[in-house]
């Protein structure tokens, strides 16, 4: 089902946010369907291989739409993680550096 760990994490996030009532599963399905349709409209093959990419895009969209975060914060945090990987010696756990 999951080809890589990030897919499972994205999956678990969607399940938990919905369970906690931040959005309904119906809203979730609609958001995911919109991403899948947009991909199809762009002419991407619909073989399921990029399913979780669309899942993640839907998750980001809903999280920002519900005011749980915003695009700028997500982008900043993503860069912080990339930076943490670049500066963590091999074999050590990667942790965000506190500002």
């Amino acid at each position: 089902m999951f080809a890589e760990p990030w897919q499972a994490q994205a999956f678990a996030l969607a399940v938990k946010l919905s369970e906690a009532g931040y959005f309904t599963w119906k809203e979730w399905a609609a958001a995911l369907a919109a991403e899948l349709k947009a991909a199809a409209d762009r002419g991407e093959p619909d073989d399921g291989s990029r399913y979780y990419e669309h899942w993640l895009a839907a998750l980001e969209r809903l999280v920002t739409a519900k005011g749980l975060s915003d695009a700028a914060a997500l982008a900043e945090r993503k860069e912080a993680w990339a930076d943490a990987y670049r500066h963590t010696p091999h074999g050590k756990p990667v942790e965000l550096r506190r500002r």
Partner: protein
Amino acid sequence: MDRRGFIRHAAAGAAGFAAASGTEAHMAGHGDRGHEHQHDNAHQAVPSDLNLRVKALESLLVEKGVVDRAALDTIVDLYETKIGPRNGARVVARAWVNPAYRRRLLTNATAAIAELGYEGGQGEDMVVLENTPRVHNLVVCTLCSCYPWPILGLPPVWYKSAPYRSRAVIDPRGVLREFGLEIADEVEVRVWDSTAELRYLVLPERPPGTEHMTEEELAALVTRDSMIGVAKVTARPNAPFVQQRLAR
């Protein structure tokens, strides 16, 4: 640095290296070419954009108290034990009933596993380690959590934990004891360190009293833990929920 040298170095850096007496740690090391991700020797490679986006989301939402990390782990764990190890179990069962397949599996695991339709996710090679009355194999990834996803699903949370990753090397018998598995002194314990290029699958011993069973029935007995090497396969599995799912 040779393979054993590398693991010695890695283990020493993490927790100090002391081989348990009577234990030979066979290590195929993490090479210095791409591990889970491409990286140089000094620092870790930056994961894929998708990976970073998920990490950003998760860490922000956990920080805000919107979601609980342990609850997320629970979901992942559920899915990995429900969905994960069926493919590997089928490989093991086939090897138990078909000697020719078993030979192919032990000499060229990647090809033998592909015969059943399971392909490597990131182009890594599979190696199958056969447990015998004299040798018990244990798989770990000391540096991160390399794992044969296509045949075992997602790694269990403990497999990714720092204590398992360091202690499996330093005190494998002690770790196995904590899993409820006592390995007799005369049995050699071999510890194998996974890499991006090499992923290991343990071929557990076929339990006695299963001679009458079909391949499918046998596959239902094979647990994820037995294919990592922290458990043996028993004729009466003690995890009926997982086993029933495997049998379907």
